[in-house]
């Protein structure tokens, strides 16, 4: 056993015993006898550690990193400078870590920059700054509680214990192509009173719903941002309705290392460790039920906005390092959110890497989805890089070695990299082309069957050589219409967002089935249900990785709002009563997921070759010009699986499909037929009834059938 010989203070300040700290790791870290504080700034020449009692607006003490101190054991004065290179580091002993919140003041030799003015650096020693590496952040401890706007230190660093009783848990490492991802918002999932949860809207609430997720059959949840964000950032009241509009989705990071306290039931206790424990406990429990956790991470910008935004942390520490700036000191805005994090600066790159390593190692997170990831391939002046060092570092990182890395391969500055994202054999992409093509096909667009066929087989036109796992297939996601709205609205209805319906995309490729929005017309309602099932069926038989949007399995609507980022209302909350209203949709989704899990030939890691054949209304003879296509997968070829035949009739009339012949001892059975009457449109995998007519299958207009041959 090694006993350290340096566990004693050398200096004292205002009664606080301390010594030169350790430069690594950055942040506040437990060391024997005390807490080590370490923070980078290249431009600052003055740094002070500010300690508060929890919740207090008046500091307990402000300890400089350079100046005159007392010797630890006497009143004698002694000079001290606790800095190595560009890192200020100090160990403070005997701190009651649960009771403490901390921040920093910094200054440098730069002119003071006022709000709204450009500036290379924006030092203001009057301001207390959040540690970019804070592992717990207080100040928004209860979701939606109106903050004290006068608080001079609104986002407060907390010290978090990283010992947790994992009881042997490890990340699951499920092969990417075997995942069925369920994208959800922590609060939206259980906040609605109909959830029946004891801890609604929280990590603990998700844990209560694990039996539901198991029943549905998904094996991965993708959480919309859970890094600490400020739901009150740019909050405002709707000019007509008076509704409080918030930063509800949370795509605007305050701190990259801290889980959002307001998403934890334990947030109210103002203890960073309990918040971390609650989230870790959710992950541990999900893992024990075979469900992975992917975090949606936002590294393209921060909550500090542009020249007019608040100084929270980064811009007051080292503006030029953390942000992409014009030569005058304006913020580049490739994110559409005011600023752009300078991700390919080596220091920021290290921070991103440290951050992801932390979540992978300390939280056992299984993967990450990178919001507007194309930005991560831009150099500090905004130019796209051919070999972006950050993406390369992430792809080759030892700790992230088994993590899923998923890029949203575009940004708000016009860089669109779907199919061309620097992958290094590791990166997968949100396949935006899958979404667009399948939506067009679903509403009956003609002449796109060539592209449809690519999407169904894992988009080899985009990802050849990268495998099917490179393609995250989705028809809906948090951005845009829900599946119910995709078949109920021709255009967006975003009036509730208070921007005169100007926000949100117009390229929805949606079709309302004959009436815009709510209707009682039974034919329209029936067609919408069928279209929803058509979409679910297509998604779950496509090669690649299917991703479902929370609630699409039960017909969730946002009343035609395709950009519901600002509503903490039932518009975003999942109404669990929909399960009673649309039991058939739930059953259909659940069975399609089970079918996918049961058939490895639907989850090939590589793009299909001779296993796959294309058909039309005539077997072995596809007509590539219409709205009708069918394909067959030969599961006998190397997979110990069945034959699977999928016919997609997006034409509006009934058509007979000639079925390919099976080997003599086998018969076609029908697993799904969205054109069949309710109750007969889907069967449990393994229980599929044999088709009476083995030669021809009659397909209703706008329907999908899945047959299994064995």
């Amino acid at each position, binding site marked *: 056993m090694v006993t350290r010989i340096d566990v004693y203070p050398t200096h004292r300040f205002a009664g606080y015993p301390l010594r030169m700290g350790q430069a690594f790791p950055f942040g506040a870290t437990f060391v024997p006898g005390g807490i080590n504080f370490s923070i980078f700034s290249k431009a600052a020449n003055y740094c002070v550690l500010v300690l508060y009692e929890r919740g207090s607006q008046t500091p307990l003490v402000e300890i400089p990193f350079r100046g005159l101190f007392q010797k630890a054991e006497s009143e004698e004065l002694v000079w001290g400078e606790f800095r190595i290179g560009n890192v200020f580091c100090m160990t403070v002993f005997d701190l*009651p870590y649960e009771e403490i919140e901390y921040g920093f003041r910094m200054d440098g030799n730069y002119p003071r920059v006022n709000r709204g003015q450009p500036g290379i650096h924006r030092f203001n020693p009057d301001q207390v700054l959040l540690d970019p590496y804070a592992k717990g952040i207080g100040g928004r401890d209860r979701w939606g509680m109106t903050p004290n706007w006068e608080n001079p230190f609104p986002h407060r660093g907390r010290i978090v214990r990283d010992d947790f009783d994992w009881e042997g848990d490890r990340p699951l490492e499920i092969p990417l192509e075997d995942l069925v991802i369920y994208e959800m918002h922590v609060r939206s999932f259980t906040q609605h009173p109909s959830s029946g949860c004891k801890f609604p809207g929280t990590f603990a609430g998700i844990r209560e719903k694990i039996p539901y997720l198991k029943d549905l059959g998904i094996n991965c949840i993708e959480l919309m941002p859970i890094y600490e964000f400020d739901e009150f950032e740019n909050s405002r009241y709707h000019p007509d309705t008076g509704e409080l509009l918030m930063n509800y989705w949370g795509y605007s990071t305050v701190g990259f290392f801290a889980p959002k306290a307001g998403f934890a*039931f*334990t947030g109210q206790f103002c203890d960073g*460790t309990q918040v971390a424990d609650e989230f870790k406990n959710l992950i*541990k*429990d999900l893992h024990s039920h075979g469900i992975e956790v992917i975090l949606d991470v936002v590294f393209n910008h921060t909550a500090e906005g542009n020249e007019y935004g608040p100084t929270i942390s980064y811009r007051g520490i080292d503006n030029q390092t953390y942000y992409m700036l014009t030569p005058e000191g304006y913020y580049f805005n490739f994110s559409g959110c005011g600023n752009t994090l300078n991700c390919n600066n080596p220091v920021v790159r290290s921070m991103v890497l440290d951050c992801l390593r932390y979540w992978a190692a300390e939280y056992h997170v299984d993967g990450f989805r990178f919001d507007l990831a194309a930005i991560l391939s831009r150099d500090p002046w905004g130019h796209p890089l051919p070999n972006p060092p950050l993406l390369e570092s992430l792809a080759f990182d030892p700790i992230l070695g088994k993590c899923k890395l998923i890029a949203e391969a575009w940004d708000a500055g016009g860089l669109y990299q779907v199919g061309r994202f620097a992958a290094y054999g590791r990166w997968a992409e949100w396949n935006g082309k899958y979404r667009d093509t399948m939506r067009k096909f679903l509403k009956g667009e003609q002449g796109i069957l060539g592209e449809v066929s690519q999407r169904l087989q894992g988009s080899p036109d985009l990802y050849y050589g990268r495998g099917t796992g490179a393609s995250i297939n989705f028809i809906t996601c948090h951005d845009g219409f829900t599946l119910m709205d995709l078949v109920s609205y021709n255009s967006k209805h975003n009036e509730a967002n208070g921007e005169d319906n100007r926000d949100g995309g117009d390229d929805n490729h949606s079709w309302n089935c004959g009436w815009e929005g709510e209707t009682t017309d039974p034919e329209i309602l029936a067609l919408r249900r069928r279209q929803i099932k058509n979409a679910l069926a297509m998604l779950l038989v496509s090669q690649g990785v299917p991703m479902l949007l929370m609630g699409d399995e039960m017909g969730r609507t946002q009343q035609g709002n395709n950009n519901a980022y600002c509503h903490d209302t039932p518009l975003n909350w999942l109404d669990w009563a929909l399960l009673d209203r649309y039991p058939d949709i739930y059953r259909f989704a659940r069975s399609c997921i089970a079918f996918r899990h049961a058939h490895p030939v639907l989850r090939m890691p590589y793009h299909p070759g001779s296993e796959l054949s294309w058909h039309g209304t005539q077997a072995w003879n596809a007509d590539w010009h219409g709205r009708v296509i069918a394909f067959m997968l030969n599961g006998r070829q190397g997979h110990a699986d069945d034959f699977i035949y999928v016919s997609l009739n997006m034409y509006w009339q009934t058509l007979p499909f000639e079925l390919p012949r099976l080997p003599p001892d086998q018969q076609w059975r029908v697993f799904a037929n969205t054109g069949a009457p309710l109750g007969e449109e889907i069967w449990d995998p393994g229980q599929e009834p044999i088709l009476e007519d083995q030669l021809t299958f009659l397909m209703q207009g706008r329907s999908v059938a899945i047959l299994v041959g064995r």
Partner: protein
Amino acid sequence: MAFSATLSTEEDTAKITLSGELDAASAPAFRSEIEKAAQSQPKRLVLFLQDLEFMASAGLRVLIFAKQKMGADVELYAVAPQEGIRETLVKTGFDKSLIIVDNYAE
């Protein structure tokens, strides 16, 4: 209220009565009672929690320490925890490894 932890041992059962606030400052006192209790190798550890007003993450960790120290076979009882503490036990998942009861009769 100040924290206190009182240990009594009867045959196979160790009993600790807790009161006050169990946080990082008071956790070491609780921990040393657990260590004392472990010396008699009890089959059952009963924690009387009705007067415990608050338990921070450091307190939870002593419970985990107790489980590790005593061994998996030892039954761990939490008697009459107040609502806040009961919820803390539930959402941290500790309710699975400990038996929460409203009252304890020998």
